[in-house]
């Protein structure tokens, strides 16, 4: 793939908003996606992620704004635009009484793959999603992980330019989670991917860019590096054999808060500037605190939210 196609804009939403009665579910948001990018939509339940994805895929009419798919307006020419979209909703839209092969070929034909080429496309999608072994099984008899894969296969069978996945890893076990994440990364080599999740680690593992939604408004929109800067090493975990009074820890420069956990463990929240790690080690050695463990704790979504909602001016 050359650089010209890589920088091609596939998805562009302008001032997209949705209202339910008087309730603003999604406040006007802008969104631009290049080919080969993975965009993560991050937010707690009820933040407006699903509503946004439904609008991007033409399943829900927006109250305002526009969506263009590869330059085609979704609201004016829905059929041309939808042909270039693949969508996996929160609940995979499966026909339980169909075999995987029949279901995928129907999905392919529905997305206007000519009947002569449809089985080729089904085989290709099944291979990419690891479904070759279960093609002749009824969807209803498959496990949840396999059903999720069938859902993804239906979204990619027509090789769309944009793949929209609504919480693709919910309810999967750790092995399936890893496989599906690897699959999504692979899909992103040819298409753009938009996915929603409420797990911060998932965004860090998969996405190039991230959009954080909170109560329907965008509170953060940046590259993944920007998000890392926000969440990096803000919390230290340590375990001391003979701990000092909390005030002694708090006195170390660069530590903003101290919290005592069970079993001699401590959680230290660091101030935005400076790294107190070296100081802690030095003090522990000098004063005989018996340092047993020292590590960083990954920031969780609540911390990021707390920080973002505090930093952003009230709107």
């Amino acid at each position, binding site marked *: 793939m050359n650089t010209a196609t890589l920088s091609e804009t596939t998805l562009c939403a302008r001032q997209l908003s949705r209202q339910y009665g008087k309730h603003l579910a999604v406040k006007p948001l802008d969104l631009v996606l290049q080919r080969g990018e993975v965009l993560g939509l991050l937010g707690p339940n009820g933040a407006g992620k699903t509503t946004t994805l439904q609008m991007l895929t033409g399943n829900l009419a927006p109250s305002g704004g526009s969506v263009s798919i590869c330059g085609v307006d979704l609201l004016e020419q829905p059929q041309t635009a939808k042909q270039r979209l693949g969508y996996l*909703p929160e609940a995979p839209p499966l026909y*339980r009484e169909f075999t995987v092969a029949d279901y995928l070929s129907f999905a392919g034909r529905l997305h206007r793959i000519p009947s002569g080429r449809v089985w080729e496309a089904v085989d290709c999608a099944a291979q990419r999603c690891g479904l070759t072994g279960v093609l002749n099984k009824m969807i209803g008899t498959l496990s949840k992980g396999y059903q999720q894969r069938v859902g993804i296969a239906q979204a990619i069978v027509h090789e769309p330019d944009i793949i929209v996945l609504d919480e693709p890893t919910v309810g999967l076990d750790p092995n399936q989670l890893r496989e599906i994440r690897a699959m999504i990364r692979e899909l992103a080599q040819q298409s753009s991917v938009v996915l929603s999740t409420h797990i911060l680690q998932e965004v860090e593992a998969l996405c190039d860019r991230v959009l954080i939604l909170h109560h329907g408004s965008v509170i953060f929109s940046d590259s993944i590096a920007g998000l890392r800067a926000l969440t990096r090493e803000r919390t230290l975990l340590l375990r001391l054999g003979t701990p000092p009074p909390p005030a002694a820890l708090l006195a170390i420069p660069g530590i903003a808060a101290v919290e005592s956990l069970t079993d001699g463990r401590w959680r230290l929240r660091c101030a935005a500037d400076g790294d107190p790690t070296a100081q802690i080690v030095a003090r522990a050695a000098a004063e005989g605190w018996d340092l047993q463990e020292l590590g960083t704790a990954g920031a969780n979504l609540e911390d990021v939210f707390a920080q973002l909602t505090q930093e952003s001016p009230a709107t």
Partner: protein
Amino acid sequence: MIALIARKELRALFGSPLAWFVLAAVQCILGYGFLKRLDDFLQIQSQLTQLNNPPGLTELVAAPTFATAAALMLFATPVLAMRFIAEERRQHSLTLLLSAPVSLTEVVLGKFLGLTGFLSIIALLVAVMPLTLSGIAVIDFGLLAMLLVALLLLTASFAAVGLYASSLTAQPVAAALAGFGLLIAMIFMGETAAESLRSRGWMAASALAQTLSPMKNFEPLARGIADSYAISCSLLLTIVFLVLTIRRMDAMRLRG
């Protein structure tokens, strides 16, 4: 695209036990009714020959069987139709059709064709029963064809009403009951309202009541009269409810 969706609906129906149960139950009832009437016909056959212009086998045996089939459709259609939209919404599989590059009109027409296609199997099986006698008895093929047309038109209007009811809610059972209630209400309107309105001289209102009543349009056709008014009323009713269904599905997209 319409044919593709219709084929998918038929395949989904035949993949479920419900469709086979309906086919078997309807066929059992109709088969019994047909044989009973045939038996009665054979008993009175000698008396019939004394009449000047005696009614034939088709009129006395086939026509009542078609009438029973029409009544059974009244129960079968809403139950089958509930799967088409309401159940798909509940199982979240409707999203596949809604996010695909097909228009809502294509989706609704595809589902309508799938449902009428399935019900036509019942209608054809009803027509086959008198045909089995064609070697040994005189069959009025004109009347038989007209009976089949009448049943198919009735089926189409039932299917359209059933689909509309199915689009009203995501609860399949509620959808089936709504469809059944709607059909019953429309039939009663045709039976009572049409007569009383006509007797008061309100011809336009009476005509409207007849348009709305699938059974009222079935009757003249089932007597072998190619009543163009009844045929247009049936088609109009079907189209109106299909348009309502499409609008209803579009409202889901707009309102969420």
